[in-house]
């Protein structure tokens, strides 16, 4: 289901006439038709933010509605000379003014659009104010940024279409649409019908790698899950294949037989990394080959990311014999060889 929003009822008048809306008792200004909702947000960043948050909470949490898109429509003021009066623009980026000469850093973006819009903190009635805002955007309204912000928080695609009713500045008529309200609303309605006909919808950008893969046999922490997703996504891009194909290239039987479950996760991540970068596997194998004769109670450790050339040897001494063993081991310890691998030794890569 879609949600349409307008700042003023007048802007929505043609919609209210054309569709058979039922008002929702829980929130004044929220209407339901057979295939979408319509919200009157009120003018200004803060009233609109309050109204949209209430509407989205109600629809999503109480009525369990799956909102697919939020379309904000309405009229706006032009800030730049290149803007045509009466034309409906698709808005690309939405900015907001906090107070005069101070902007909100955060901006929001639609999936399509040609021009940028700034939501001002008050009506723009002077050229000085208009000039300041024109450095950021082509159009000015009072609410769209708040609506985009709420939509992002509720993870709903947001699009915005604005008709230019006037130029902001000294000569503005304060966007007073009373006289021409029906004309503007008719144009917006016709535009909306065209949109419907063209079936313009937001592109799906993110293709999740989380398909039907089952990792219930693994103990995966949040950071490991993050890493796993990234590695799988990288592998899918690298080989132009599905996550299922990627996993089929790994020794999954061997990995799944490892115990405990934590070990399985480490092995899975390691094998995925090696699939993407066979060089890493060669380096680990070369390092392990060099230290393979290390006595059992000695533990030789190196930086798993190979950034640090330091090698750590850990052991507990229990006897003079072990002390002698350590001395012998250290005498021939292949430090140079290990460090040479870490420094890019040709034979190890």
């Amino acid at each position, binding site marked *: 289901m879609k949600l349409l929003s307008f700042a003023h009822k007048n802007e929505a008048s043609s919609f209210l006439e054309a569709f058979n809306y039922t008002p929702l008792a829980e929130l004044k200004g929220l209407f339901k038709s057979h295939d979408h909702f319509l919200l009157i947000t009120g003018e200004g960043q803060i009233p609109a933010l309050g109204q949209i948050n209430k509407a989205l909470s109600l629809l999503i949490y109480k009525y369990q509605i799956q909102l697919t898109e939020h379309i904000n429509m309405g009229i706006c003021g032009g800030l730049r000379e290149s803007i045509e009066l009466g034309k409906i623009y698709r808005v690309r980026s939405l900015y907001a003014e906090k107070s005069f000469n101070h902007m909100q850093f955060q901006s929001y973006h639609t999936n399509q659009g040609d021009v940028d819009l700034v939501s001002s903190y008050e009506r723009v009635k002077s050229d000085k104010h208009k000039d*300041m805002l024109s450095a950021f955007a082509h159009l000015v309204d009072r609410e769209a940024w708040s609506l985009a912000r709420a939509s992002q928080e509720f993870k709903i695609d947001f699009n915005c279409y604005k008709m230019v009713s006037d130029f902001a500045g000294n000569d503005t008529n304060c966007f007073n649409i009373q006289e021409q309200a029906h004309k503007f609303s008719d144009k917006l309605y016709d535009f909306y019908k065209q949109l419907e006909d063209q079936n313009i919808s937001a592109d799906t950008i993110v293709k999740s790698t989380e398909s039907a893969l089952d990792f219930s046999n693994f103990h995966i922490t949040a950071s490991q899950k993050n890493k796993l997703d990234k590695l799988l996504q990288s592998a899918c891009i690298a080989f132009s294949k599905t996550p299922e194909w990627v996993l089929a290239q790994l020794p999954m039987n061997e990995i799944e037989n490892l115990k405990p479950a934590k070990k399985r996760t480490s092995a899975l991540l390691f094998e995925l990394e090696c699939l993407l970068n066979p060089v890493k596997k060669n*380096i680990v194998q070369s390092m392990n080959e060099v230290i393979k004769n290390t006595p059992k109670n000695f533990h030789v450790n190196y930086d798993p990311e190979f950034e640090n050339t330091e090698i750590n040897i850990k052991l507990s001494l229990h006897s003079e014999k072990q002390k002698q063993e350590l001395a012998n081991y250290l005498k021939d310890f292949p430090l140079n060889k290990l460090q040479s691998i870490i420094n890019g*030794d040709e034979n190890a890569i």
Partner: protein
Amino acid sequence: MLFSSVLVEKNIADEKLVKDILSRLPDSTEKIEIESFEKVFGAVKKPYLQKRENLNLILAHKKGKLVKQAPDAYGLEGSPHYYFVHAYNCIYECEYCYLQGYFNSPDIVIFTNRDEIQNQIIETYNNHKNENEIWFHAGEFSDSLALSHITQECEFYWQVFSKLPKAKLELRTKSANIKALKKLKPQSNVIVSYSLSPEFQLKSYDRKTATYKQRIKCIKELSDLGHPVGLHLDPIIYTPDFKQHYEQLFEDLKVNINLQKLCYISLGVVRFSKDVYAQLEKNYPTSNLHQQNFTTGFDQKKRYSRPLRLWMLNQVKNICLSYDIDPQKVYLCMEE
């Protein structure tokens, strides 16, 4: 149209240089006056990829330090290195570019207070009187040549460095915009340095820049005219056959220029700061750069693991040396 609008600081609107730059833009470019660029540039978060549709050009004065010390391993060893800030941002779009995570806006800023930049260059030069040479790099935050037809900066800095014999000026570029340079008399202390990668890599990751063939053609033309030329083989990106590609690159260069005449070759592997990598993921979610197995280094940068990157750098360095390039002229960029 390259720029949809040009934003000019009010108090510099009457400057000759500003008027000259404006006169070189198409009439259709919308002109907007602003109080100061700091209040606009970076005041809001603008998506990096908006540069594909349209860009604003901002003409402004930059206050404060205009000449800054370069980080370690920025250029040839043994001399002090500085870069000067003459512009922000680039008209090109390279997937690995660090600018995508550096500024909060892709808009181009050109600083027109060149006399102040010149003064600070001279001051820095005078502070290093005892050095044999001192380097100044242009292009840390923008391509040195891409907009030179609009800014006419080459002519200006040519004249500045003609009076500073111990100073070297490096103009870093990926541009084929060498018309201005071709008209200027070569100066031994002004080096044009081209970033170059194997052709397939350049096609994959560098957008709107001069192509591989165009860059080699420019290197040849400048070299033939007697201009000193340097090379940045950066970023080197791993593929199983990357060595063959770099051998091919040197073959292509060899048939066009005398490789021994190159002033230097810097080598660097692809690397990202945390912020830039986040932007890469956002801007290019299907980039082949994601298949590269990076690690997070001591400096929080994403790059290849130490063995792999040192091995890669050595491989390319060995290719350089196999073409009889003086080892002193080959240096590793941003490596210990």
